[in-house]
């Protein structure tokens, strides 16, 4: 080892040693990341949690104008069977009035059925408006009591700190009155 470190072998030896240092250090870093990743990834949703990812809901008992809450992946799903007047009201809103512009049409598969994840996009509280007697907010939709976000009859954010509209989950109509969420 004294040979390579001696001044007579000068630059060449040092460059080679530097390269070996870098290579060894780089491999060490890659190895560390490879060893840590399983630990990190183990904290992601496990297979059994993911397996609960779809739910079927029978819409038949829901009456016109009624709002119903079901559970999907631990979160409430708001189902609102909207009347013609409500739908027309939501569609009459100009897009420039919306902080997160989205047409009512884009948020539903069938205009009568509004289906959304009932979790405020601000900090995750459950907005009020599903039970009769709940405050509906200034736009007749939902109102989050935690920090005062108002959602309209299409679940779009209108006022308050929430940045986004209530999220529409992936769902499909398996029958005329039955949906599968997830």
């Amino acid at each position, binding site marked *: 080892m004294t040979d390579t470190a001696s001044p007579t072998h000068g630059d060449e030896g040092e460059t080679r040693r530097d390269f070996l240092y870098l290579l060894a250090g780089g491999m060490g870093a890659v190895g560390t990341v490879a060893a840590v990743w399983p630990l990190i990834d183990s*904290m992601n949703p496990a297979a059994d949690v993911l397996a609960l990812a779809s739910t079927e809901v029978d819409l038949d008992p829901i009456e016109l104008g009624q709002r119903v809450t079901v559970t999907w992946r*631990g979160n409430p799903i708001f189902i609102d069977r909207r009347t013609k007047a409500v739908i027309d009201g939501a569609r009459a809103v100009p897009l420039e009035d919306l902080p997160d512009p989205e047409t009512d049409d884009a948020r539903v598969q069938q205009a009568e059925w509004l289906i959304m994840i009932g979790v405020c996009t601000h900090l995750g509280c459950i907005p009020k408006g599903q039970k009769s007697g709940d405050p509906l907010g200034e736009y007749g939709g939902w109102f989050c009591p*935690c920090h005062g976000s108002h959602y309209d009859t299409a679940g779009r954010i209108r006022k308050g*700190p929430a940045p986004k509209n209530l999220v529409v989950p992936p769902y499909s109509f398996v029958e005329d009155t039955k949906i599968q969420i997830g």
Partner: protein
Amino acid sequence: MSDFQTTNPVIKWIEYRLPVFSFLDHAVGTKYPTAKNLSYWWNFGSLAGLALVIMIVTGIFLAMQYTAHVDYAFDSVERIMRDVNYGWMLRYIHMNGGSFFFIVVYIHIFRGLYYGSYKAPRELLWMIGVVILLVMMATAFMGYVLPWGQMSFWGAKVITNLFSAIPLIGEDIVIWLWGGFSVDNPTLNRFFSLHYLLPFVLVGMVVIHIWALHQFGSNNPLGIETKGPQDSIPFHPYYTVKDLFGMGVFMIAFTAVVFFMPNAMGEAINYQEADPLVTPAHIVPEWYFLPYYAILRSVTFDIWFLSAKLIGVILMFASILILLVLPWLDRSPVRSSKFRPVHKQLFWIFVADCILLGWVGANPAEPPYLYIGQAGTAYYFAHFLIILPLLSVLERPRPLPNSISEPVLKGGGTAMGATAKPMEKA
């Protein structure tokens, strides 16, 4: 080989092989010279240590009875309260111990702010302390989730949701933190695991904190360095006794709350089991988080591409992280506010501002609280970023005494002080 003197053969035998006795003597004994003028404000470090020990001991025994599962957690805590021998006492001590831990740590921090304990050469000591505060807050937050009451659940949901404000990867981070799509059983389990782990991390960091402390010793009410033996006294027996006395006073206050008003600092709704489908009307964190909560909620407007939510989160973390750079914001060479007539006033205004923010945090985020919170938040950051740097230049400090012993001994210490180290800068 060791300067440790003893006639006890057993201690001698051990000391020769493992010099633990001389180590302790240098750490907290007769060989650790400490400024002779420390006031009772210097008791709160040892009180924080006591609080940490109380929390670890009661926590270990509570963990023997607790079940970390969403179906059983709430009931297992109620079982501790009703069926386990002295379970109610262990839990009330642990529950209120958290609050008292924060009380003594906050006093400890404000003591440092008033007497300039963060200044050179103790910057790193101070910064380690700030990290200890952060770890302590994470530990307290996760511990509060374990009883699985309504406030446990919704506090956890709101605070973990803060991370969704991070652009692009925020949503994925939140799902990773939860281990699912909502705060649920995987979340409860990992919080329990980490809540058990972090206090021992704290112990390690406290050791480093004390290690850094011993490099230059404690600051003192005059904020000038000890200049010789006439300025200091041995830690043992003088400060061991004083710390013990302080612990006695602390225990009187602590046990009074534990036994006579154990739920005074808690939220009644946390005695209702967590319901993921019903948000309580008014979510508030524990009192020791209220000022940060007020700062978080004070931002209701977007700035450029940054959402109000993200700015609120950034400001909330910044309100603590700013303490890390405090030694470089306050450039005044004088440490103690005793000799800083303007800083002394502004310190108390700052304390009042923190209390005001705490009050705002306990109230709903609507006018007039909202505006008061915004003013309070602005002042909080102005204190660090504008007032302190300006004050370093504009304030004219009063003259410092030549040594610690001089004002105490009315000039009696000057003769010896003259032969000691030369006078420090400023």
